[in-house]
């Protein structure tokens, strides 16, 4: 008895609350932009955003004042440069201060994995590699390996209140297929208290090989049909990453006014993602 597909606006309004810790995951691929934009439209505040690579979607959410805290491991525009809204929040507290909890990729992936495994923490070898460890952050601790005596790094589990993923397909029973680069999306979902998904299409039976990455329906709190929901990120087999947009964002986000105007026109000023894609000329 899978939950029926619900409009994305209903899913966000029901499952994402002010002050929640929220992970919109997907490593470069399948980033749930439509869901992030709906969170902006619904003016959520005080969110603790969690993502390995904040990417443009968190740049936008941070710039629009949704977040007071960010847990991340690499905060740039991939292949392009800075996330200017993230930078301005950290460097000049605009639109408000943003508390950072910073990990390396390996640490944050492990933190999700620990959360997905019902653990309070997980361990990796420790080496004197980085000043990150010296920060006053509540993130990693050292302990000796009980077998070798060598130092280990313990990373605390992350269990987001909500994890949101975008995926290619949902079947009639509500099972969800992710095809291509998965990043730590599955671990972030399994770690979460609630899992929301947006999907490109609904099918009778998933086009999935025997060892495909499938999230069973019973792990999912809510599913919404949002074609193009990962744009300007991509959905393998559906549409490519809009590398032109990622480059163009550098200029848009560099300036507060240009940023605000873009968000006004393309996010706040539209009812949903489909309307945005039409304005951008990406969808007919």
């Amino acid at each position, binding site marked *: 008895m899978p939950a029926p597909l619900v409009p994305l606006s209903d899913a966000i309004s029901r499952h994402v609350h002010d002050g929640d810790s929220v992970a919109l995951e997907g*490593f*470069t*691929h399948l980033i749930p932009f439509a869901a992030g934009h709906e969170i902006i439209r619904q003016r959520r505040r005080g969110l603790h955003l969690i993502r390995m*690579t904040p990417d443009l979607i968190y740049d936008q959410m941070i710039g629009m004042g949704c977040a007071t805290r960010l847990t991340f*491991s*690499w*905060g*740039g525009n*991939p*292949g*392009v440069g*800075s996330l200017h809204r*993230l*930078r301005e929040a*950290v*460097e000049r507290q605009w639109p408000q201060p943003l508390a950072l909890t910073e*990990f*390396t*990729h*390996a640490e944050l*992936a*492990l933190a999700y*994995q620990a959360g997905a495994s019902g653990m309070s923490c997980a361990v*990796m070898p420790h*080496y*004197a*590699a*980085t*000043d*990150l460890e010296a*920060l006053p952050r509540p993130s990693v601790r050292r302990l000796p390996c009980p077998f070798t005596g*060598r130092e280990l790094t313990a990373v605390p589990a992350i269990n987001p209140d909500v994890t949101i993923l975008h995926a290619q397909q949902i079947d009639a029973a509500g099972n969800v297929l992710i095809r*291509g*680069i*998965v*990043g*730590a999306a*599955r*671990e972030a979902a399994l770690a979460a208290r609630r899992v929301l998904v947006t999907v490109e299409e609904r099918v009778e039976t998933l086009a999935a090989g025997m060892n495909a990455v499938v999230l069973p329906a019973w792990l999912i709190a809510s599913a919404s049909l949002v*074609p*193009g929901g990962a*744009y*300007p990120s*991509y959905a*393998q087999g*559906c*549409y*490519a*990453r809009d*590398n*032109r*947009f*990622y480059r163009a964002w550098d200029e848009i986000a560099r300036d507060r006014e240009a940023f605000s105007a873009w968000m006004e026109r393309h996010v706040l000023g539209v009812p949903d993602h*489909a309307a945005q*894609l*039409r304005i951008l*000329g*990406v*969808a*007919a």
Partner: protein
Amino acid sequence: MSVPAYTPDEIMTVTAARQLKDGAVCFVGIGLPSAACNLARLTHAPNLVLIYESGTVGVRPNVLPLSIGDGELAETATCIVPLPEIFAHYLQRGRVDVGFLGAAQIDRYGNLNSTVVGDYAHPAVRLPGGGGAPEIATYAREVLIIMKQSPRSFVPRLDFRTSCGYLGGSGERAASGAPGAGPRAVITDFGMLRPQPDSEELELAGLYPGITADAARQATGWPLKVAARLETLPPPEPQQLATLRELEARTRTAHARPIHIPL
């Protein structure tokens, strides 16, 4: 001095590509490292194994990715693994021969900063952060660093140590237990720096044709030592340049292609 028939980026890329032996397993970063690895794969090292941190193993892209996780990587990979595994099963397990790094700042021992300029709590510039770099720097059997040389980036003291090179030099890295051997070379737009075997301080080991040691010294924020035998690095070969330019032309065309999403 005649104008060379190649750009600084091109000779950096070709020089980096030449460091790669066929069959090596490379953990590839985006930008120049990605161009260098694929150039090597398309020329002298067809069996290079390229791993991107998005979890794509053994990729053979026809165009360069803009991001670390473009669809081109997934489509041409031998296999795709979840991100926790690419770090645990490949990098941490010691399967990676060569890791590539760049950064905003480097010091004379090859330690790198990609986190902040200024104070961490109140930074003048908030940089993207560590990402995969701290673990690449620690675990790859050896590291190649690619950075443009300037006094602002080649600094006497890092604002923040994101990733380790030789720490304080003279064996401090090995004593720390770090599994990898550390930076083997720093490839710049002037030439190449290599660690002096005893002190592990980076010294100027090679210059591109037409570049002087003085120019390299002036682009360095610490008193740059020069190796006893200063090599003149060869210019790109025509076939390398042609392959690189074709690759980049294909890439530009692909990245300029408009996206159409049927709703």
